[in-house]
């Protein structure tokens, strides 16, 4: 009874944490979120994406050909709540709540501890993990992908005892391939490793039937993906591989070793260095993800104090490596970072998100050991850890992030859209230098009718949707032109010129008779956008000077 009540409280707390100010924190909506949300809106109204493609198997978006499940699930959210930050992020937040439940079931199922409280404590810290929270507050597919992966993993663990779960496990893992690019690599790798490590059980007579059924069904639901498997769209992420870096290092070393040895040496070095980064305490507990959109200021993937149970957990895992649950955790831990380790991004918490599960399990092992060793002294320490973690989270998520990363998250575009709405009959030129893809942000916040954006795109894209992988954003949206300022022309026509603080200097504004009509600043007071009204008559009356642009 007590455990049930505590579990319900945990879920309520998680839901509150993940949903609180979901639309305000992070401030703004960055291009990938806006792109997903607008395509869901376009599907809702027209049955087609922003390029005019009906019900795609993979969404082109900004050239990423993202697997479709998250976008389709966002359609009802947009229908219910409209086109705003909350509707785009809702599916991600709800996935995170379900993920906490799945993690709880996994910890209980693995029997890391005989204690009833350990799964609750572990799940609470899981819910508080910065790595999870930054992804749940982003309107993209990562958390949904993690949910399906975790559910599949849990089912496959149960499947080692009850064969029927094998079917559910493989089906869920297969479904996760429709959520993100990482799953395309991770699911086959993990599934193969699972079959090898547990082959004695899985290939026994009593399990074989369910195993074959599970794998067959998993392949069956991949038929839509197989239809585009040999198109450029399916392998668009291949550019992330670090082959050029390997060749560069090998060329540098050919003074001492032959290239036939240098290339494999440096290729393995590159992979292992990336792989070990996902286990390095420095990366996990002390350094944020280098991508400012994938991290909080001053906070890493986990809290700093978690390095202690992490190191203890690793020791326990190695000592008990022959036990079934430890084998399973090791299998997860060694397979989940592989897709991310094949890319050139140093420590990508987005691509390595599935590694959150085994790493948190390892930390839970350490917490359990400490709890058993400290006895009654454990409870006050756990409370201190919770309070400290909450303080660090509050500081990074609700104080520093909305101020310091606002522009990174597309803050200002909503206000810009409001300014544009005030001038429906004016021509507007927006200088996109140094800005995120402008067209989709404006399409989202104006909002632009989907047929208009569909016609603004290159029409050949919809006919060769999965072949035409080049991304060329439209430069004309209704009365808006998205291009660099043509000083020889624009200042002699009646229009509004918009850019960042460097697009038009005060000297240029004075020289070309430009009148500032609006300014949009970030929470720290820095200018994001400036809008100038041209005055062609005044300009022509001014003495001619040499054009400065």
């Amino acid at each position: 009874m007590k455990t049930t009540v505590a579990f319900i409280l945990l879920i309520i707390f998680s839901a509150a944490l993940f949903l609180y100010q979901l639309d305000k924190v992070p401030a703004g909506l960055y291009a990938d979120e806006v792109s997903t949300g607008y395509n869901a809106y376009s599907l809702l109204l027209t049955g087609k994406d922003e390029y005019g493609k009906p019900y795609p198997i993979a969404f082109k978006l900004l050239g990423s050909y993202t697997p479709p499940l998250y976008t389709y699930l966002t359609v009802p959210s947009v229908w219910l709540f409209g086109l705003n930050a909350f509707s785009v992020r809702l599916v991600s937040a709800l996935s995170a709540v379900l993920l906490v439940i799945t993690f709880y079931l996994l910890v209980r199922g693995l029997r890391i501890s005989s204690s009833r409280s350990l799964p609750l404590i572990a799940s609470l810290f899981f819910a508080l993990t910065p790595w999870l929270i930054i992804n749940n507050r982003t309107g993209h597919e990562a958390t949904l992908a993690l949910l399906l992966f975790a559910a599949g993993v849990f089912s496959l663990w149960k499947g080692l005892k009850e064969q029927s779960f094998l079917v559910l496990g493989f089906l869920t893992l297969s479904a996760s391939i429709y959520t993100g690019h990482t799953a395309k690599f991770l699911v086959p790798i993990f599934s193969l490793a699972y079959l090898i490590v547990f082959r004695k059980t899985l290939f026994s007579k009593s399990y074989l039937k369910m195993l074959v059924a599970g794998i067959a069904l998993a392949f069956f639901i991949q038929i839509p993906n197989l239809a585009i498997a040999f198109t450029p769209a399916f392998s668009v992420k291949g550019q992330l591989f670090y082959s050029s870096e390997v060749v560069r290092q090998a060329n540098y070393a050919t003074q001492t070793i032959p290239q036939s040895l240098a290339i494999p040496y440096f290729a393995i070095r590159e992979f292992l260095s990336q792989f070990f980064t996902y286990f390095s305490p420095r990366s996990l507990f002390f350094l944020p993800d280098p991508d400012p959109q994938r991290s909080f200021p001053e906070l890493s993937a986990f809290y700093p104090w978690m390095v202690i149970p992490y190191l203890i957990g690793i020791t326990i895992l190695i000592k008990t490596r022959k036990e079934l649950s430890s084998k399973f955790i090791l299998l997860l831990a060694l397979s989940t970072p592989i897709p991310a380790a094949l890319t050139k991004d140093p420590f990508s918490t987005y691509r390595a998100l599935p590694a959150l599960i085994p790493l948190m399990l390892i930390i839970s092992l350490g917490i359990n050991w400490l709890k058993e060793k400290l006895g009654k002294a454990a409870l006050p320490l756990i409370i201190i850890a919770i309070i400290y973690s909450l303080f660090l989270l509050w500081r990074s998520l609700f104080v520093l992030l909305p101020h310091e990363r606002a522009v990174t998250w597309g803050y200002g575009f909503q206000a810009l859209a409001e300014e544009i709405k005030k001038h429906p009959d004016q021509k507007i030129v927006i200088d996109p230098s140094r800005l995120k893809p402008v067209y989709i942000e404006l399409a989202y916040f104006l909002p632009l009718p989907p047929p208009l954006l569909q016609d603004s795109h290159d029409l050949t894209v919809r006919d060769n949707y999965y072949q035409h992988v080049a991304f060329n954003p439209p430069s004309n949206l209704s009365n808006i032109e998205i291009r660099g300022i043509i000083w020889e022309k624009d200042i002699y026509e009646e229009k509004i010129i918009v850019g960042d603080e460097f697009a038009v200097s005060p000297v240029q504004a004075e020289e070309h008779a430009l009148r500032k009509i609006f300014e949009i600043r970030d929470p720290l007071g820095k200018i994001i956008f400036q809008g100038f009204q041209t005055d062609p008559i005044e300009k022509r009356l001014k003495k001619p000077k040499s054009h400065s642009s």
Partner: protein
Amino acid sequence: MARKVLWFLAACASSLWSWELLIFNPYLGLLAIATSFILYLSLFNPIRKLLLLSLLFISALTVFQIKLTPKDLILSFTPAEKTLARVRTGEYPPYTNFITRRWEERKESAAVSVMIRNFSEVIDPNLYFFASHPRERIGTGEVEKFSYLLIPFFIHGLVMIRKLPGKHNLFLISIPALTTIILGDIKTLGPFAFYPFFASIISLSFFKIGEKIKLWAEKKS
């Protein structure tokens, strides 16, 4: 004994860090190698003499590291950090100032954050086997310490050490650990006071594998 020495020398020769230290300062390099050798021997035979010698040499190596480490003022903010702390204090809601001012602007916060950063660098396996790649420390010309090919030997050595009588001598690592966390290290050479621990563990692995190969060869013949 001869075989132990041979495998030890092989481990030192295979480590780029040994050569970097010898090139930087031959006395430093020899001190590091000698320290490693004494520690390595003490793992097999934990007699008091060897333990005391290990303590002495590790302390000497640590003092060498302290002398070479630039003494950044860890109890002070740099001008950039002062500006950031001031800006950040303004980001908090006013009613939290009584906590947040202390958190952002006190010298102790600067000292703690530097020590945490030093600690994180010291326990980063990538520092030792990949020259901190792919997260190289900014402004640091990282040097290669041990090739990644030695990782399996290092792990094997860690496993083998559990069976040795002198395994507790590895706790001497706390001496350089403490000083490196507080003061940092000379970034271009890395925390070389840790070199003996890596070298002795890898030497142990080489020795154990060498013994296994010898036994196998004897059985065959």
